[in-house]
């Protein structure tokens, strides 16, 4: 992955806190690495507990979600950022 793209994968939480995504398997791993409190159970895309709102930007899905999601909702155990993103948790 080009350095510029890595630099630009900044995750902003609730408009107040930011950290750089560092190629962890999922956003959930990345958030945990930065001590962002996030609820989870299965880490496999089917319990739905890590559902958050994507307020800006795009994500890539690394595993299938098997739970009901409305527009703008993502499971952080199943996604990685594709460029800078904003989350509401």
């Amino acid at each position, binding site marked *: 992955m080009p350095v510029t793209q890595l630099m630009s994968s900044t995750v902003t939480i609730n408009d107040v806190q930011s950290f750089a995504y560092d190629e962890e398997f999922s956003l959930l791993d990345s958030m945990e690495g930065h001590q962002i409190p996030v609820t989870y159970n299965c880490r496999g895309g089917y319990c739905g507990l890590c559902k958050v709102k994507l307020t800006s930007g795009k994500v890539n899905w690394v595993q299938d979600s098997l*739970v009901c999601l409305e527009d703008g909702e993502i499971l952080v155990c199943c996604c990685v950022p594709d460029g800078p993103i904003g989350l509401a948790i």
Partner: protein
Amino acid sequence: MAYSTFSKVKNDALKEPMFFGQNVNVARYDQQRHAIFEKLIEKQLSFFWRPEEVDLSTDRKDFMAMAEHERHIFLSNLKYQTLLDSVQGRSPNVAFLPVVSLPELETWLETWSFSETIHSRSYTHIIRNVVDNPGTVFDDIVDNEEIVKRADSVTRYYDLFIEMCSQYSLLGEGVHQVNGEEVVVSLSALKRQLYLTLASVNVLEAVRFYVSFACSFAFAERAIMEGNAKVIKLIARDEALHLAGTQHMLNLMANGQDDPEMVAIAASCKDEVIEIFREAAEQEREWAKYLVKVGSMIGLNAEILSDYVDYITNVRLRGLGLEEIFDIRSNPLPWMNAWLVSDNVQVAPQEAEISSYLVGAIDSNMDDADFDDFDL
């Protein structure tokens, strides 16, 4: 109307609703109206396990060394789990298969119910291991007043739905005289009962089961009955999938993505669904008191278990787009997460039949160009 095992009427299953359309004829999975059920089947198949894979040899020693009140908690909890899976091993098939109209949902129901039979077999595996006479434990499930009370509340909606479906199948819509009594059969009343039954199944798997899981894992948190906890961890992984299934069915109906008539029915059922959750939460709190009536154990008392009931009920209500009904916001049993994580249950694709590993081995996208360098 009368069930047909293979309807000869040609139809487009992509236009059928989940339930009460034409009975499924061809079991085909190349196309799906609701692809989520195909994904759930794939996931459930990739989760396949057998209770005998889990070694329980140290559990017997742990059980022998346990105090009387701990044995009461352990066995009562196991009896309750046995009851719940006895119901779930047959009821989705008996209740929903006669009225399902999508092939992928039909197979999901069967796959779901089958996995519950594995759970039932695992309770026998556990009970055989810890007591000399398993009959004493199994017999008590229908003798014990507290368990029988539970059985009534988990089967009430199922049983009424099955009775109403039988009348619909035999008599059709209308007002009928059966054994001197007037019976009114209406499809909209059946659809309403279907929605409520699915909600009660969601409560069974998403709330009631999780309270029992908390008890099983509480023992293992103290490094006892760890074999049992390993089995329950596999069961919990399956149940998370099953509850996602009922959440999908309920949400597809309520959001107008399936049978248009279900939107209004779901809206009219909202208060009753919340009451089903509230009633189950109350019963689970009562059950928590019964479990610890002889004495609490370290890490688990009636109060903390009741708080967990409230917490998990709120989580499940949110999953159905409903408002929370209890004040609690944070998980009172944070250690549960470690037991509910699935990604460390199976790790090596070459050792376990992970679906994505198998699917990836076959390239099903072929066109003429693939034969360009092919000579006869």
